[in-house]
């Protein structure tokens, strides 16, 4: 088991280095970022800025410096806010993670019962309806779901604020939007992983020894179906944060996503790099934790 964990940890470190390389290359993708930032400026001014940003050094030197600085949380000053970019990102992280957690909770609260129902009553009208909802949900752009909810609940019926963040009522629409984006995903996984275990021998045995159907499903089937749910939640965490970025933009939620999208429009590279890097590191860490959790939840992994 410890060999497995060590191997996983090594991969975690390697992936983190890869993530730094990709983040580093955002700035250099254009060839000359300074020309992008100040297209009108005379060459002398550009050269001055290039020196100030350390862009005249060879790329490997710049990369090592980037990693060393990133490890200390230093991504440079934001071009526009004139503040350290990392601080601006960290400041907004709780909002983004809060929105994501709210949405995941909401999605699980709906997806677990509906997914179980679909699997247990396979091919009934209810199951077909649930499948139809999954299809519809996965075919809608998340930002459009948000605008439609805004149109109905904020503009038409005036029940909730159009945008913002902070009060409970302002959190409802963003959380429901991101939840609506996440629910079909979970429903699908829960249904299929329940279907896989529900006809296995041990479930039949549990039923045969006279346990109630309810107990069989919750105690025996769901426990084993939970593994794929944990894995997929980890794997889809990137998709979820991407959804959060779009939701924040629709509802003007002051989170990391909205900050990065704004920074991308202004070519404020330090913020873009700090934000993308931090989100990626969170995703890598979540996946690493999922793997570790997996070892504890599934004893068969420990043997290998």
């Amino acid at each position: 088991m410890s060999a497995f964990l060590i191997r996983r940890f090594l991969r975690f470190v390697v992936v983190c280095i890869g993530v730094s390389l990709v983040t580093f290359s955002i700035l250099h993708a254009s060839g000359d970022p300074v020309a992008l930032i100040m297209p009108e400026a005379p060459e002398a001014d550009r050269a001055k800025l290039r020196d100030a940003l350390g862009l005249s050094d060879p790329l490997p030197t710049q990369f090592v410096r980037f990693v060393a600085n990133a490890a200390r949380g230093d991504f440079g000053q934001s071009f526009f806010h004139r503040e350290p970019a990392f601080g601006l990102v960290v400041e907004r992280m709780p909002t983004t993670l809060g929105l994501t957690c709210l949405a995941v909770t909401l999605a699980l609260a709906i997806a677990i019962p509906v997914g179980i129902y679909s699997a247990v009553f396979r091919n009934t009208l209810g199951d077909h309806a649930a499948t139809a909802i999954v299809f519809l949900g996965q075919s809608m752009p998340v930002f459009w779901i948000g605008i439609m909810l805004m149109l109905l609940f904020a503009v038409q019926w005036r029940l909730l604020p159009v945008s913002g963040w902070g009060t409970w009522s302002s959190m409802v629409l963003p959380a429901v939007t991101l939840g609506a984006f996440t629910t079909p995903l979970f429903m699908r996984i829960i249904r299929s992983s329940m279907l896989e275990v529900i006809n296995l021998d041990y479930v039949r045995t549990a039923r045969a020894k006279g346990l109630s159907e309810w107990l069989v499903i919750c105690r025996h089937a769901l426990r084993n179906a939970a593994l794929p749910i944990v894995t997929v939640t980890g794997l889809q965490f990137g998709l979820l944060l991407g959804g959060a970025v779009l939701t924040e933009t629709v509802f003007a939620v002051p989170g990391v996503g909205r900050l990065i999208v704004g920074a991308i429009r202004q070519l404020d590279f330090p913020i873009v790099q700090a934000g993308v890097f931090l989100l990626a590191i969170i995703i890598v860490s979540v996946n690493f934790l999922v793997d570790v959790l997996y070892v504890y939840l599934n004893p068969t992994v420990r043997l290998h």
Partner: protein
Amino acid sequence: MAVMLPRATVAYEVGASIAGGSRAWRRFALNPAALVGSAILLVMVSVALAAPWVAPHDPAKQSLLRRFTPPMWQTGGNAAYPLGTDQVGRDVLSRIIHGARISLLVGVSAVLVSLVVGVSAGLASGFMGGKVDTAIGTVVDVSLSFPQILLALAFVAALGPSLVTIIVVLGLTGWERYARVVRAEVLALREKEFVEAARAIGVGRLRIIVRHVLPNTVSSIVVMSTLQVAQAILAEAALSFLGVGSGNAYPTWGQMISLGRDFVTVAWWLATLPGLAILVTVLAINLVGDRLRDALDPRTI
């Protein structure tokens, strides 16, 4: 679909896959959902191709006199502008029709880029194993560590927004699934008798890959590609919603929704209708992809 669990590999022997092909095709063609999906797609593609002739108006023509004309079924609507006009008086229907071109073009081209990169990586990874496999696996892990939309947004902005940039960037941020699935299939196929037989009679490695292994991965690649096109269309819409579209010259659905969001209190149709166009298109593709998967999956025979 966003989640695809690895499917059983399809009909290993080439002969079997041809015989199974017509059976699978019949199963697909008899399915009502697949038929509806295909019909919608056919209409969408034809409309997109014939956009300049089908669209009732020039999608860029403005008129301040006609601003915010509601759809024709509402009071104040005008039958000449069936789906109404936007904040500068452009015809919404014509813009949706022209927008279909960008969505479908970017969707299909981006997936082609992903397909080439992902399938090559998967084949190399599965066949060479060892260091190559580890290296490609690491690259896959790294690229799955970013929210796709954010990474694509950053690179499109840094490279300068254009249609080609969007296609390439979306293609290069969506190839991982091909690599994973093809690699898994190669590992399974490698041990099959017909591959061993080919190896035994001295067939070269490259030829085994191209002639014996690749044809047997085609059905999963086809299914995956269909579902990936749906994802790519949603991703393109998200990029142009966030404001790094292919430039302002040509209407796109995402950009129309983004403008519609600003006028959500005065003109509901501006954001709603292009979104419906996305929903119908992506839903049709997902239906076709899902039924294709069912039809091609030998486990259901």
